[in-house]
């Protein structure tokens, strides 16, 4: 396994006080919280912060961690020395702040032993827990529906309190018309219930993979469409791609760059279906030949056009 430098994760020196640790954790947790942050690695960073904080905030765990020495580099191959935790007792429960998701090897091996999954206890604790996972699909899948094979790593706690990961593969039908942020509920696919009680449900949150052309906003979909100056000026019939095949669209005469054209019902299907918004992006051909230069010259002659007529006030 790899050594984790928890001080580095929190941006601290080894001499940091407990107050420093708390302050730094709070600050970074706000920055990298996956519900707030748009950093692409926010989820991993937040998990790492949680692990670092759980160890360093607890004076006993911190002392045990410090005893490993300060010569290790983050990411260096690492085997804990025998009896490294002798004389320490990590009786504590894990924080639920990061009970979700998979734990880092290093953390799990060194500090994970006493961890219990906290149970979302209502009045009937025998009912299995609801589980949550995220599924990333293509926008096209929302137009057509799809089948996805999803592998979940479920932490399972055995009778001795040890956590092992169990892989579980599910084949899930993604219905046509799903939108980002919506959930699919799979009844009875969550945690198993105790003593004849029903299993919990599995909730899959839908997210769309980034697409170079399309962008979804709720049930509406946006695309930038490059057009030639003469197509924008004279009007044109243009083939527009949609996530579900191409459609024909009329660009009206005298369209300005940035003009937004709506193709009703060509967004994500549903009742009502979303719309597809096509934003015209006028692309200028370069004046890189004699004919092209002559054409621009002819335009200059033909128009009495001052683009900055209203510009200087």
């Amino acid at each position, binding site marked *: 396994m790899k050594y984790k430098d928890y001080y580095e994760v929190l941006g601290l020196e080894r001499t940091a006080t407990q107050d420093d640790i708390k302050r730094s954790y*709070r600050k970074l*947790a*706000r920055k990298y*919280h*996956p*519900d*707030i942050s748009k950093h692409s690695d926010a989820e991993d960073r*937040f998990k790492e912060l949680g692990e670092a904080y759980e160890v360093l905030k607890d004076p006993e765990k911190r002392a045990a961690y410090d005893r490993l020495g300060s010569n290790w580099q983050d990411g260096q191959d690492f085997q804990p020395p025998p009896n490294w935790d002798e004389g320490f007792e990590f009786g504590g429960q894990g924080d*639920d*702040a990061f009970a979700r998701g998979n734990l880092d090897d290093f953390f799990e091996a060194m500090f994970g032993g006493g961890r219990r999954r906290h149970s*979302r206890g*209502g009045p009937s604790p025998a009912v299995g827990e*609801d589980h*949550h996972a995220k599924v990333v699909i293509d926008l096209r899948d929302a137009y057509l529906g799809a*089948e996805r*094979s999803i592998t979940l790593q479920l932490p399972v706690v055995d009778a001795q309190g040890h956590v*092992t*990961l*169990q*892989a*579980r*593969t*599910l*084949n*899930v*039908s*993604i*219905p046509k*018309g*799903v939108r980002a*942020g*919506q*959930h*699919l*509920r*799979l*009844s009875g*696919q969550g945690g198993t219930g105790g003593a004849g009680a029903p299993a919990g*449900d599995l*909730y*899959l*949150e839908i997210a769309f993979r980034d697409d170079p052309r399309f*962008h979804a*906003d709720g049930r509406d979909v*946006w695309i*930038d469409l490059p057009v030639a100056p003469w197509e924008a000026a004279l009007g044109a019939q243009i083939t527009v791609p949609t996530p579900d095949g191409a459609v024909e669209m009329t660009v009206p005469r005298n369209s300005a*760059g*940035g003009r937004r054209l709506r193709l009703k019902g060509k967004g994500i299907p549903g009742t009502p279906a979303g719309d597809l918004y096509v*934003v015209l*992006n006028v692309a200028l051909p370069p004046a890189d030949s004699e004919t092209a230069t002559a054409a621009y010259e002819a335009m200059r002659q033909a128009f009495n056009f001052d683009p900055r007529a209203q510009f200087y006030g």
Partner: protein
Amino acid sequence: MKESESPQLEGQLVDEDVEFSLVELCRVTGASEDELTLWVAEGAFDPNGNEPQDWRFSGALLRRVQTAQRLAHDLQINPPGIALVLDLLDEIETLRAQHRRSSRR
């Protein structure tokens, strides 16, 4: 690691047509009834029905309630703070969408 069965599963889409009671929504999101009641009192969520036992939450709120639950627990944010953060996140989302539209050209 153990590989389990893999049947073909049809999920139910949790959209506006799905409703949760207070107890159900708490179970799904891991929020406590007390905190969810306080978030409603702050206006962060607006269920149908007058009394907590009659409340019905739209399935479309699920993600927002989960976000509230995670933020409240991970960052120790109190109910007025949660209501404010959710409003600000909505605003940021709207601005990002506008920004994307105007900056891609």
